[in-house]
C-alpha cells in the first residue's frame, strides 16, 4: 500500500531527525566544556603558527575535530541513507501563501502520537534553540569563534528546552576516572564493558563515562489534525501601511 510506505518513510525520517538533534545537542554541549574550549585555543594557536596541517593534527589529537564534524557528518550519512532507501523526502522551498508542494505526512493516529511528539519536540527545539537552522547550516567557511558564538546561543536554548522536558540523570554515580568493579550478571544495557576483560566477571576497570538516563520525558502533544511534519513555518513580514485591503 502506498499509504503505509509513506508512513514508514515518514517514521524513518522522523527517527533520523531525532537522532540528528540529539547528536547536535551532544556536540554543542561537548564543544562548550571548559577542557574542549582549551583545546580549541590550542588548535587555533597551532593553526596560526604551523598552518593548516599543524592545526589539523592538533585538532585530530584532541576531541575538538570530532565534535565539530559530528553535526556535519551525521546529516550527510542520513541523507545518503535516505537516498539509498529510496524514500528521499527533501523539503521544497515553500512559496508564501501558496500550498506547500511537499506531500504531507498522513494525519497522526493514536499509534502515530509518539512520532508526532518526537516531531513536535524537534519543532520546539527549533523554535527555542534554533536547532535545525544550526545543524542545517554549512559551517565550513566560518572560524571557530563564530561557530562558538552560535553554539553558545543554541546550547543555552537547548539546555533550557531539554531541562523543561526531560529529567536527565547519570546512570553511574561515580566521577569519571574512578575505579569500578563490574560484578557478575551485570546489565549490559546499563554498563558497556570496553577494553580487555578476561574470563568471567568480576572485572576491575575505570569509569570512562557515567552514562545517562532519562527518568522522565514530557513530549509536546500535536494538536488534533495538525500536520506533524511541519517543523517551522515560513515567515513573511508585512511592513506597516502595507496591510492590504
Amino acid at each position, binding site marked *: 500500500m502506498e499509504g503505509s510506505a509513506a508512513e514508514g518513510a515518514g517514521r524513518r525520517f522522523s527517527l533520523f531527525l531525532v537522532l540528528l538533534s540529539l547528536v547536535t545537542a551532544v556536540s554543542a554541549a561537548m564543544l562548550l566544556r571548559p577542557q574542549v574550549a582549551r583545546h580549541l585555543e590550542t588548535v587555533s594557536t597551532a593553526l596560526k603558527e604551523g598552518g593548516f596541517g599543524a592545526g589539523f593534527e592538533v585538532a585530530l589529537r584532541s576531541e575538538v575535530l570530532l565534535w565539530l564534524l559530528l553535526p556535519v557528518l551525521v546529516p550527510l550519512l542520513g541523507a545518503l541513507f535516505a537516498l539509498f532507501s529510496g524514500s528521499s523526502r527533501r523539503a521544497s522551498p515553500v512559496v508564501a501563501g501558496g500550498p506547500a508542494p511537499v506531500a504531507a505526512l498522513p494525519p497522526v493516529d493514536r499509534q502515530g502520537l509518539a512520532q508526532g511528539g518526537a516531531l513536535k519536540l524537534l519543532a520546539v527545539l527549533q523554535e527555542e534553540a534554533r536547532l535545525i537552522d544550526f545543524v542545517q547550516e554549512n559551517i565550513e567557511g566560518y572560524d571557530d569563534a563564530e561557530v562558538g558564538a552560535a553554539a553558545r546561543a543554541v546550547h543555552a536554548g537547548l539546555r533550557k528546552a531539554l531541562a523543561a522536558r526531560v529529567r536527565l540523570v547519570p546512570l553511574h554515580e561515580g566521577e569519571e576516572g574512578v575505579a569500578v568493579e563490574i560484578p557478575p550478571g551485570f546489565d549490559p544495557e546499563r554498563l558497556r564493558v570496553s577494553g580487555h576483560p578476561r574470563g568471567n566477571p568480576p572485572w576491575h576497570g575505570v569509569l570512562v563515562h557515567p552514562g545517562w538516563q532519562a527518568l522522565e520525558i514530557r513530549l509536546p502533544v*500535536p494538536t488534533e489534525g495538525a500536520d506533524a511534519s511541519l517543523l517551522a513555518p515560513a515567515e513573511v513580514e508585512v511592513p506597516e501601511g502595507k496591510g492590504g485591503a
Partner: protein
Amino acid sequence: MSSLPSESKATLVVGIDLGTTNSVLAWADIGDGASALEIRVLGIPQVVELGALEERPILASALLLSRDEEMTSSAFRLPWQGEAPGIVGAFAARRANDAPDAVVLSAKSWLCQKRVNREGAILPWVGDDHEAPQRRISPVEAQAAILAHLRRAFDFKMAAMQAERPIETRETICLDQMDVVLTVPASFDPEARELTLRAAERAGLGNLRLLEEPQAAVYAWLASRGEDWRHDLGPGDLLLVCDVGGGTTDLSLVAVRDEQGALELERVAVGEHLLLGGDNIDLALAHHLRGRLALEGNRLDGWQFRALVAACRDAKERLLGPDAPAELPIAILARGRRLVGGTLRLSLSREEVERIVLDGFLPELPLDAAIHVSGEDDLGLQEMGLPYERDPAITRHMLRFLRRHAEALAGHLPARVAGGALHPTAILFNGGAMRASALAGRVTEALAAWAQTAGLEPARVLAGADLAHACARGAAYYAAVRRGGGVRIRGGTARSFYVGVASAQPAVPGQAPPTKALCVVPRGLEDGTRLSVPGSEIGLRVGGKARFRFFASATRPDDRAGWLLDEWDAASLDELSPLEIRFDDAGVDEEGRVAVGLEAHTTEVGTLELEFVERQGGESGRRWRLAFEVRERGGATS
C-alpha cells in the same frame, strides 16, 4: 474537617493568580477529610508552538487575537471545545514582538487605568501615530479569555484524572462548582475589582471571591510553615510584604497582635498601584546592551530584541544570584536561517548589572531623603496608554509608602514608627523578580539602614516563599481556611471611601459650589458588612443625569462613616473616576431631588456597593443601587 458531598458540591478549593504577565492556578482536595492540605499547581495545557501543546504550570497572560485563517487551523486546536477570541499562553507571548498588532499583553494593568474606557475595544493599544489594528478587544474581554482558558484547562484535567478512577467513583468536577478565590492587587480600586468580576462572569466563573495578592502571599507562607509560623512571628511584629512581579510592585503591611492569647494577623496598610516590575529591569538591561551594539553598528530587529530581553532576564538572575561569575557571555542569533555568520556576541558583567539594576531600581537612600514622585498630571500632555511609573526606584516608592502610613498608624503601632517612617520587623518577598537574590538583598539592606538610622532592629526575612506560585497557592489555602480552621488575616477594606456632596450655600456666579467629601466606608470594614451611613440627609437627583464623584484614602484610618470633610488636601484623598448616571423615579416624571440616606455594602466577594435609600417610606422606601460599574466615557478629554 470532612464534609459530605451532598452538603456542598465543592470538594476542591481553587486559587487563581491572574497576573499581569503570568497566571497560575492551584487547587487542593478538601473533600477527603485528609489531615494536611496538599495544594497542587495545575499543569495548564496550552499551545507552545504551531501544532504543539504542552502542559506548563504557568500560563502567560498573553492573548493572540486570531485571524479567520487561524481560528480554523488545526495548529491551534485545544483539547477542549469552546469559543475564544484567540490563543492564550506561551505561544501568544512569544508572538508579541513579531506581531505586536495581534497580541494583547498586560490587560490587567488596563483594568485600573482610569482615563480610558475599560470596556471599550482598545487592545492591543497603539499610539495615535500608528494605524489601528483590525481587531481589538476590551481589557475585560482579554482577562475573560485568560480566565476561560484556565477554566477549560481545569475541567479538562479533572476529567482526565477522573477517567483513571473506577467508573462508580467518578465525579464531574467543574471549576464553576468549586470554591474559587481570585487574587487582585491590593491597590486595585473598586472599579477594577468590579471589572475583574465581570471578566470572571464572562468566563463562566460566577462563584468566586477576591483576595489581595500580598495577603495571598502571606497565606501561602502560612500554608508552607504549618503551625511553625508562630515561631517566626510574634505579637508586635510588623510584616512588610514586598511583591515585585513582572509588571507591578505591590506593598502591604501586616501587623501581628495578641488577641486573648491567640495570635492575630491584620493587614494595616496597602501601597499604591505601581506599574513597575521585573520586566522593566530586563528591558533596562536589554536597552543598555542594544545601545552598545548600536555603537558597533549592529541593529537588532524585534525578534532579536526579544531574544536579548530573554537573555538579559537569565543573565540578571545568574549575575545577581549566588556564586555569580564576574562576566557572562551573551549570544543573539540572527532571525533568518543563517545562524553562524550572523550571531551577535556580547557580554554582560556583574558590575554593569549591579550598576544598572541595583543603583537604578534599588538605590540606597537615607531615611530622610527628599522624595518627589511626580504625579501623572504634572505634564499638560501625556501620551495615553499605561501610566508607567516615571521613577524606577523601587526603594524610593517603598520609603514613600512607609512614610505615608507612619502618621496614620502612629497610634496603632507606636513602637514601629520612628524618624517619620514605619519600620517593619519582618519581610516576606513575593514575585518572580525576586528570584535574583541580590534584589531581595538590596531591599533588606535598605530597610535595615533605615531602621538603624531610627535606632531600631533590622527586619528579618521570612524564608520559605515559593516566589512564582505563592499567590495561587495562598488563594487556594485561603479558600480552604474559609471553610473552617486556620488563621485568617483581618483587614477589611484597605482604604476609606467617600462620595462628593455639593455643599449647600448661596450660588456665587462663576464658581462651582465646593464639594465636600462624605465618608461612606471607613477603612477596615470587613467583607460582608452592611452599613447604614449615619448623619444628615442628602438630596439625590432623580429623573435626570447626575454626576457622582468618588474619593478613596489609604492614609485616613480614623475617619468614620458619616463624617463630612469640608476640606482635604489632594495628597490624602485620591479621586476615583466619576460616574454619570440617571436614576429614574417611577412615580414622578420631572426632575427632582429625593431625600435619601446611604447604605454601604462590602460584599462577600470583595467588592463595594452603595445604595441610596429613600428616607420617607421606611422599609418599603425606594432604593437606587450604585455599583462601581463601567460607563462610556469620552477618553482623554474628559
